[in-house]
């Protein structure tokens, strides 16, 4: 994105550098919404490129897109639906982690809800994979637990 370097004004832009070395620009007002970024700006000044070690060039543009809309007050349910429509479950997870790292509250809340919605009624195996969890129960232990929690397993199809 070409930057109008000497914009005389209100829309000051901040340079962000991703963990894989790419540089992106955002408006200062959008940067304010990401508390981690704002803290770095406070410490390092707003003229230098802010390094974000744990965010990468794949996800940062999407995050910037979200906050661009946010500062103009245009975030609607429709926009949010569109925003996640074409993302697969892993992509949402990556964005979620990035939002957490950046302390970007609004995006974080929206993505947490989206993840919960996606996980709803998925099989246990799927959820395990999603969170990178190893099943460390023995088959007996697992079936005992399922019995105890039988009420929560009723009516759920296990096969995805």
């Amino acid at each position, binding site marked *: 994105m070409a930057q109008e370097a000497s914009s005389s004004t209100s829309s000051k832009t901040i340079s962000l550098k991703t963990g894989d070395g790419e540089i992106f620009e955002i408006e200062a007002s959008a940067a304010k919404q990401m508390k981690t970024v704002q803290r770095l700006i406070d410490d390092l000044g707003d003229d230098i490129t802010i390094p974000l070690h744990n965010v990468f060039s794949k996800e940062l543009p999407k995050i910037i897109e979200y906050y661009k809309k946010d500062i103009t007050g245009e975030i609607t349910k429709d926009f949010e639906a569109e925003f996640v429509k074409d993302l697969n479950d892993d992509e949402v997870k990556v964005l979620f982690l990035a939002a957490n790292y950046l302390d970007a509250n609004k995006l974080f809340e929206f993505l947490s809800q989206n993840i919960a919605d996606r*996980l*709803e009624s998925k099989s*246990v195996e799927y*959820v395990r994979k999603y969170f*990178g969890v*190893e099943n460390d129960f023995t088959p007996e232990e697992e079936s005992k*637990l399922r019995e105890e929690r039988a*009420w929560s397993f009723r009516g759920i199809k296990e096969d995805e």
Partner: protein
Amino acid sequence: MSQNFDMINLLPISLLIIIISLLPFKEAARTSILAKNWMHLWKSTTNVEFNEHHFSRSNEFQRNDFLKFITLWIENHHQNSNIEKFSLTLSDPETDCEIVKRCVDFATQHGVKDLALNFSDTDWSDEEYDEPEALFELPTKVYEHKALESIKLFSCGFVATKLIKLHSLKEVSFGWMELKNEAIKILLCNCKKIESLSIKNCWMSTNFECSGSDLSLKTLIIDSCKFYYPRLTINAPNLSYFKYYGNVAYFKIQNSLHMNEVDINFGLEYQYPKVDEFIHKVITDFKHVKVLTVCSFILQVLSNALGPLLVEDKLNTRHLKLMTSLHNNEYLGVLFLLNGCPMLELLTFDLGFGRFLDKAPNEYYSSESKVEVEVEDEYSSDGDGDGDGDGDDDDDDDDDSSYVGDENQIGFIDYKNICQCLKSSLKVVEINNFTGAKNQILMLKFLIYNGSLIQRITINVSKEGVVNVENYHKIKECVMTIRPRASTDLEIFFFLKN
């Protein structure tokens, strides 16, 4: 990628709990078997739902298991973690009123913000109930719990003058009770933050009035209620979404310029009204609303007499949703409405919601040209005193419509100003529960032949409706080959849905 993978393994528990808390309680419980370190995580969920329906085994409610579960849960819960949402669904609450009180104490002690109590009897149905007394009274503790932002009471009596102590209330929902207009008035006037009011299966012996120049109310939902005087006055300047489902009601709407979306569904009516002019008022009251959902009843009344009145009153609607089956008695209403919305951009058909009203007059608007629609056989058996549902007219007696289908099809209504929106604004069409019935294809043809700006038509076919895959492909083929297309940009999408 593996970097992120590890990161999620190392996610602090607080984040996992955030996600678990966004899951329905039942789903959260299942996370306990993911792995050993997940066994107890779900117990920290901030979203607790004790619902007797989860505890039914082969249709028999295991009440004791349910109550035991609740008791254990409350006893074992960490004192420190807070609860954001608490919901209890239990029939016959008086028998175990101690447990109910314990639940409410538990929720309030843990700072609940969103409280839902549902004591309704599972035997009560939407359409017939004897107006039973509320089965429980809201415990006093709740009135003191000032943090409460959302409350839902089903068959749980309350005292309005005490409820207003809850100044933080934003969402209020009542169900299965008698409501007095005074209660609603007091509530809305005193709890200035209320943005959403929903009343379901309630009955009112007084007028319903929701008015106040400083009301924050944005959402109003009235669902399956019984009004002895079905006159509803609504004057809420911030009201953006209004949904009504039930028997015919007469609305007095004021200050409605901010209304964005309205859904009027007289779905509990089976009889054609003796007096039908009010429907015209219903439509014109909401003429500046951007998103309008209209039901089969309204379409039929429009078909029978009032449609032409719309020629005078144009609607500002940008998105029109029709709950219809596109049968004989509704068809004209659909066309009249389309004609009345010159700025329409998005049109949605929710098929399968039409019905034949008893005692509908069998007159069609007669002008130079009539439309004769072949009705699919499945509907003709539903008709009652309707003339023959199976209009077997093979003669094309039409005339100057812009395009006529092939020989076996029938023509269209011809108006002088045919559906302005088709020429100048309609861009997207969605059809849900499409089954490929003749009248549906006819409507599609009408839109495709005349809609010069339509960019996208999305057709969701119901699996049940088409019966088998072969049929589905036949229907798809038929639609995709409809020509001529008025729009050069048109894309048609088919989806097979359960």
